[in-house]
């Protein structure tokens, strides 16, 4: 076992969703069964997290022995990943997600979306892509994956009207948006769920901030000229607007939900 033994308690190959709730637990005669679904926290983009507070750093690189620091036991909190006290699973799951995405992008052909075909790149090229996905901004190579194609716009459609109800925006396009609803998961016949959007209509109630969402936010296609996405804020009645929606492609929503259960006795 390595020094990072307890990190594996948080990783464990797949992860129990951190929002697991009581209704996912079924008591049985022998104990209980826990049901959960796992998916990427960010189903659209590939930007790796850089969050690393001092306590996380202490855990990750063994930097606990800070000169003069003898009071570290007194200020532990729920986010403290000190493995003696807390497994820091949220952070680790974010890191796992980042590495998983980087591997898929490095391994798969093209932009790595919707394909199972492996890239013909050399191992060295794949390693470069993997590391490129995890680099700080100033060291990213914008000419190779993922930064040269992941956030490409698939298509652009004109918007004719928008409305918002209960934090869900409904967009009506000026013409059919032509978003395919049958390309994925042939056996399960699920609706495609990897579409996303960047809306630009000069209205903060609806626009998508590309700083926070560089590859857009997930959408649900609800008709040949309509789709919805989530954005918090007050309700807004249907309003005619002029603007565009850049259609993006992400990783996939419910089609990638990994169903798991764990029986305990």
């Amino acid at each position, binding site marked *: 076992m390595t020094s990072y033994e307890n990190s594996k308690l948080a990783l464990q190959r797949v992860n129990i969703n951190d929002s697991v709730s009581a209704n996912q637990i079924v008591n049985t005669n022998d104990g209980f069964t826990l049901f959960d679904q796992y998916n990427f926290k960010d189903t659209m983009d590939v930007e*790796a997290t850089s969050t690393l507070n001092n306590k996380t750093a202490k855990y990750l690189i*063994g930097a606990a022995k800070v000169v003069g620091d003898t009071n570290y036991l007194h200020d532990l909190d729920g986010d403290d990943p000190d493995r003696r006290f807390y497994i820091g699973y949220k952070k680790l799951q974010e890191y796992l997600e980042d*590495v998983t995405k980087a591997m898929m992008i490095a391994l798969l052909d093209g932009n790595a979306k919707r394909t199972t075909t492996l890239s013909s790149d050399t191992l060295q090229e794949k390693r470069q892509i993997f590391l490129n996905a995890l680099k700080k901004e100033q060291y990213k190579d914008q000419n190779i994956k993922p930064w040269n194609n992941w956030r490409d716009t698939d298509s652009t459609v004109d918007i004719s009207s928008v409305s918002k109800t209960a934090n869900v925006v409904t967009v009506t396009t000026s013409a059919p948006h032509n978003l395919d609803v049958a390309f994925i998961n042939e056996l399960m016949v699920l609706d495609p769920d990897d579409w996303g959007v960047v809306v630009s209509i000069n209205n903060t109630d609806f626009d998508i901030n590309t700083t926070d969402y560089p590859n857009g936010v997930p959408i649900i296609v609800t008709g040949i000229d309509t789709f919805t996405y989530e954005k918090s804020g007050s309700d807004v009645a249907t309003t005619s607007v002029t603007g565009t929606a850049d259609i993006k492609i992400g990783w996939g929503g419910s089609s990638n939900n990994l169903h798991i259960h764990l029986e305990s006795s």
Partner: protein
Amino acid sequence: MSFNWPVIPFAGTEVETFVTAYKELAESIYENFLDEAGFDENVTTGGPHLKAPFRNREIVRDLLENGLVFSSFIIQQRSGTPGPGTDFVLGSSPLDSIIDSSDWLNLLRKAGCIFDEGEIAESLRTNLEGDDPTPMDDEDWLDNLINEISNTDPDPDDISPDPTDPPPSNCSAGPKQTLAFALANAHPSAMTRVKASALWKYVNCDGTPLTQNDLGSNEVNTLKDKLQGFMDANNDLNLQLCTAMSGGGGYTVPTGGTANQCSFYNLAGESRGLRNFLGTAVVITDVNGNVTEVRDDMDFTYGKELDRTDGSLAGDPYDPNDVRDGWSWQTHGRDHVGNPVDPNSPTAIKVNGVVVTYPPMTWQEAYNHHKDERHFVIDSKKNDGGIPVPIAIQF
């Protein structure tokens, strides 16, 4: 073999091809990580190229290992092939077959089956406190050494001593170790050669100080550059990684200079290869902040430790009577990261005000807890060999 891959419960041409390619790439990433991760030497604007969570090769390995299942599942979904993980039918969950269920159940028990994050954190704090933790060694540099000196990393999950490679006799390196050190001494990294020189003295029971005379000029200059870079970064960026020792701490300090007690357990030390070599050390600087000397004692909790009782300073020659077994081999306490420590140390973990003590480690436990090149130290200890090495390098 560096990875302990989970069994993938998905079948089909696409996913099986993907899994093979994934493992090949992951192994390649791990093997080349130290050379390709990237580091910009510019003190003020540079640093590691990778974002902070991904700079440690062992952590990246763990993440790669654990990312295989879900990425395979996505491929399975894209291929449209049926398989486990797509419903809640009992028996079709992939989880049971791919986790170490004992660990997971253990964790759930510790969680108290209270699925509230705050309660989980509280419960874990309480329940993990009595665990027998895996020590996080402050001499992790041995881990890195074996990775840097050879392309034949031992299987880290093979915790048993290699029967074909018996421990060396007292105070001598065995054939495997000798080969490893020979490779280390020919390694292009000057820092690796410095580390190897110190460890060579340790396993051969040469307790005389490692000085600049034991190293080549390239090694000395490189070490100085690394230390100077660290000190400059510490001062320029106000990192507060060093504490000036009152009165020079008894060391001979240039006029107007300072003896600095420094910790390299940080990114500034890690990125310069100092963490794994020195851990903590005294760095002496002149009035202009130029590094003139470094002082340290290289000893091991899982080997021999040096407890100076005669008032001598780190890096000085020492009284052999002050050498004792590391705390791993005695009834010991453990600090918050699991390092064996003196039970009377203020860093020893206490429960309800009482220090939690642990019995001396068995050899198997030691081999289990300390990987790779550290086995050299344990092997030496097994034969009552290996002695601390003072480090006193002047520039």
